[in-house]
């Protein structure tokens, strides 16, 4: 059925996204900590890290995706 054709398409896309997330997060952990402000006095890496921000916004992003996919599933399931 054509409708389920596009359901599998989105599932595929979701898998791609999830891979992307896991991949980028994994990579970031090994990256050196960037320093935001070059003109500030000596700061330890940790004090200028925005790691928590990155994880937080990705949690927001995953929530957005989950909601959207959920309603998309309802749309596909209903006639």
């Amino acid at each position, binding site marked *: 059925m054509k409708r389920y054709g596009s359901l599998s398409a989105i599932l595929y896309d979701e898998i791609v996204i999830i891979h992307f997330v896991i991949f980028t997060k994994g990579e970031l952990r090994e990256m050196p900590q960037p320093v935001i402000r070059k003109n500030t006095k000596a700061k330890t890496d940790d004090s200028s890290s925005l790691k928590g*921000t990155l994880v937080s916004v990705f949690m927001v992003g995953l929530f957005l995706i989950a909601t959207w996919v959920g309603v*998309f599933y309802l749309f596909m399931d209903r*006639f």
Partner: protein
Amino acid sequence: MHIHKYEKIWLIFGLTTLLVFLSVLGVSAFYLGNQPPSCLATINPEKVDTTKPFNKPGLKKVEGKDWDYELVFVASAFNYNPGEIEVPKGAKVKVIATTKDVIHGFEVAGTNINMMLEPGFISEFETTFDKAGEFLIVCNEYCGAGHHMMTSKIKVVEA
């Protein structure tokens, strides 16, 4: 203007997500035909009762079309005609509706059949009734004091 590296990652992720959503919606709409109801046909709202197919509301079997049945509804404050209808399960149906007076909604609860009925316009939606059961039709656009009493029912029965 300086953008933090993590913010770039976040924005690329966000943009990719939006693009994926839009692609899924676009393919579903333009290639698989899942467009929202957007019928472009007009009608004189004062002559609905004498205009085909609205002169005979209800379910009609049709031949030689992409769908097997046409299900015609006429809405007016505060009721739908027909007030109850049976549809065989698995039927491919084009739902065709219009209003004789103000704007009404036409929502078959628990389905994707959800469209605005506006005076002067015909609204259409094509779908296959593939689940048996009783489905309530409600008016979901405010139309006056009896808005919440405006209802009909579709019974999808085993063919």
